[in-house]
């Protein structure tokens, strides 16, 4: 008897950790058993216990309906139950999620600052609009967020974590077969990965770099209007946005219906711009519209020349400073000048978005001044270096001569006194 009690207790002990986290509802109890037998890719519940809804105490029935208390009874729990919904269609799914997530009062129980406009946004998105029209091949809540293992956006394992978003979008958007008839281009992800933003987010793990949702929106995802691109890029590149908006190009672009920023910088494969964008050569972006050249070519040429001369000045200053440093001269102050010049170069490159030669020249001037100062300082240091060696040569000559003369003198004095000594 004693042993029976012990054995039962033992099994209950090990049972507690095994089943403590598991939901105490009828749905899970049956369906998990069926699920375990499935192949890995067909499994539904690989991460269910980490699902944020499960953690907060929701059950299968909260989305699927049915009676979660009707253990071991298929009919009572599902078929005969009026509230049972079973597998949800795309539209139903979105409305089911929205039932809670669009209710601010309800959501306030879990977070006072979480947004509640996801569903409203969704119906304005490219996905939502297509779904309303009857196209079922669109992304729904579960396609991006997962279904039975939904994690918080802040969780690095979530499918919609910052750096995972591009991959999640590309699951559909990179598939030619899937996007056939809907969207022609499927190279967005490949292009993005090569871009500065892709590199920053995916390689350098800079979480401030934009993923697809930062430019396209997440729940209201759709390609930006031609007129709003400037604002979208301007969220981070504010100076460029302001300068461009005040330039004469902004109106012209709007009139022609040309997308701002994108026309010169591309959209997904945005690379580090080169100064050659301005140079009227093969890399020129201006020539695409201004085929004949004219005033545009003149301005581009001037802008290029301003940047180039600043760059050349800065490089030659750097060379001189490094030369002085190698010679051992104390020139650490000059590195501040070089930094100022470098900052001016960055500002000048930004300033060209004003397409105003005077403004650009104004921005570049402090950089030219700073690199001139660095050059002057470096030259002075190099001159000083030569001066010291010349000075040493002169001083050594004088000292040697003096020592020699003194030696002759002392010999002379001694010879004389010796003679006197002999005679005296």
């Amino acid at each position, binding site marked *: 008897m004693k042993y029976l009690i012990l054995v039962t207790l033992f099994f209950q002990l090990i049972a507690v950790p095994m089943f403590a986290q598991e939901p105490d509802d009828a749905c899970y109890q049956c369906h998990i058993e069926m699920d375990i037998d499935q192949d890995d890719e067909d499994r539904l519940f690989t991460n269910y216990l980490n699902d944020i809804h499960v953690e907060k105490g929701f059950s299968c029935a909260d989305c699927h309906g049915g009676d979660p208390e009707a253990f071991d009874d298929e009919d009572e729990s599902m078929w005969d139950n009026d509230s049972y919904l079973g597998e949800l269609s795309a539209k139903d799914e979105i409305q089911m999620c929205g039932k809670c997530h669009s209710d601010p009062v309800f959501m306030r129980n879990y977070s006072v600052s979480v947004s509640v406009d996801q569903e409203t946004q969704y119906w304005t998105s490219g996905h939502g609009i297509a779904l309303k029209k009857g196209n079922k091949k669109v992304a729904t809540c579960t396609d991006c967020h997962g279904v039975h293992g939904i994690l918080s956006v802040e969780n690095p394992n979530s499918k919609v974590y910052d750096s995972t978003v591009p991959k999640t979008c590309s699951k559909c958007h990179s598939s030619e077969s899937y996007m056939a008839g809907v969207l022609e281009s499927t190279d967005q992800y490949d292009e993005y990965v090569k871009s500065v933003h892709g590199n920053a987010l995916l390689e350098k793990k800079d979480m401030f770099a934009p993923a697809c949702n930062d430019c396209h929106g997440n729940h209201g995802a759709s390609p930006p209007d031609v007129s709003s691109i400037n604002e979208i890029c301007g969220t981070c590149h504010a100076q460029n946005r302001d300068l461009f908006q005040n330039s004469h190009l902004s109106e012209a672009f709007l009139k022609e219906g040309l997308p701002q920023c994108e026309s010169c910088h591309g959209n997904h494969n945005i690379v580090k711009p080169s100064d050659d964008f301005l140079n009227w050569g093969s890399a020129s972006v201006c020539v695409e519209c201004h085929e004949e050249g004219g005033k545009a070519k003149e301005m581009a040429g001037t802008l290029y020349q301003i940047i180039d001369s600043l760059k050349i000045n800065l490089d030659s200053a750097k060379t001189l400073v490094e030369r002085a440093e190698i010679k051992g001269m*104390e020139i650490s102050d000059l590195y501040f000048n070089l930094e100022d010049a470098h900052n001016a170069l960055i500002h000048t490159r930004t300033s060209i978005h004003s397409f105003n030669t005077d403004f650009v020249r104004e921005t570049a001037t402090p950089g030219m001044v700073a690199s001139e100062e660095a050059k002057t300082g470096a030259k002075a240091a190099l001159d000083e270096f030569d001066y010291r060696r010349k000075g*040493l040569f002169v*001083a*050594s000559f004088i000292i040697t001569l*003096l020592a020699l003369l*003194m030696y002759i*003198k*002392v010999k002379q004095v001694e010879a004389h006194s010796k003679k006197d000594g002999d005679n005296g």
Partner: protein
Amino acid sequence: MTVNDWLQERFDIEAVKRFAAKKQVPIFYGTVWYYLGGVSLFLFIIQVLTGILLALYYQPGSATAFESVKFIVSKVEFGWLMREIHSWAANLFVFAIFLHMFTVFFSKAYRKPRELTWFTGMVLLGLAMFFGFSGYLLPWNELAYFATKVGTDIAGAVPFIGDFLIKVLRAGDEVSGATLTRFYSIHTAILPMIFIIFLAVHLIMIQVQGMSIPLSMEGTPANKRKTMPFFPNFVIRDLIVWLIILNVIALLAVFFPWELGLKADSLASAPAGIRPEWYFMFMFQTLKILPAHMWILEGEVFGVLMFAVGGIIWLLVPFLEKPKHSKLWFWFGVTILIYMIVLTVWGYLV
């Protein structure tokens, strides 16, 4: 009326001149070593002059010392030259004194009646090394900071008063801006005063007693000895040597400038290759190789005691040496010399 006559009417210049003319320098194979005393004096004068000039711009204090030295070296006209001369002459100064001490030792010039001259000379050597130690910290750079840390730590190894010594030297428990202030006053006020007093006594005694003659010459009667008058013959030769040394320093200043390095940072790790100045190296290396415990004493304490005992013996050589043991003392000196050289080189090889 010449200047001489004018002064003669007021002070007995002729007596001074007669007294000076009596001083003779023995001429033999070892005469060249007789320059070392004057060279040491010359280097001290250079240190005082360049030190005063540097003090016109140097600002002690952990926030300003490094920057002021940088200012001197990069912005002040010929500032680099004054600093380089001061740094190089400091090293040559200590070297010259060591060399002078050894030549005096091996020629046994410390024997009667010159025991006190030897004594004051040893004090001057100690003061010179303290000059070097305190001056080294003043640029407040990384190397200096850690070298001072290590050096003052060794002072702590002195039994009984070690703790007291550390607190007095460091002006606290750690090396800090307070240490810098204290070292500055030691280097520019306290040491110069004490040094000059001992130097004056040292020089006066030499002047009064005359130059020591080698043992080999003692047998020869005074009027048959080969000598030259100190004034003006040896003095002019002395000055020529001084000129040559000046030129050497100038060459070193231009071609082998001392780095300023990085500013001291109490939180930075000690840089690789950190070590004390070369004249402390033999002691540093000795302490390094001593085992952690020698009988009942800690290795460091044993080392410090060893130096103390050795130093005292060396100091008391004029009183301890008996004529029949002169060979012994010669080899004792050789051993000490070799020990110092070997340990110094060793310290740099590691």
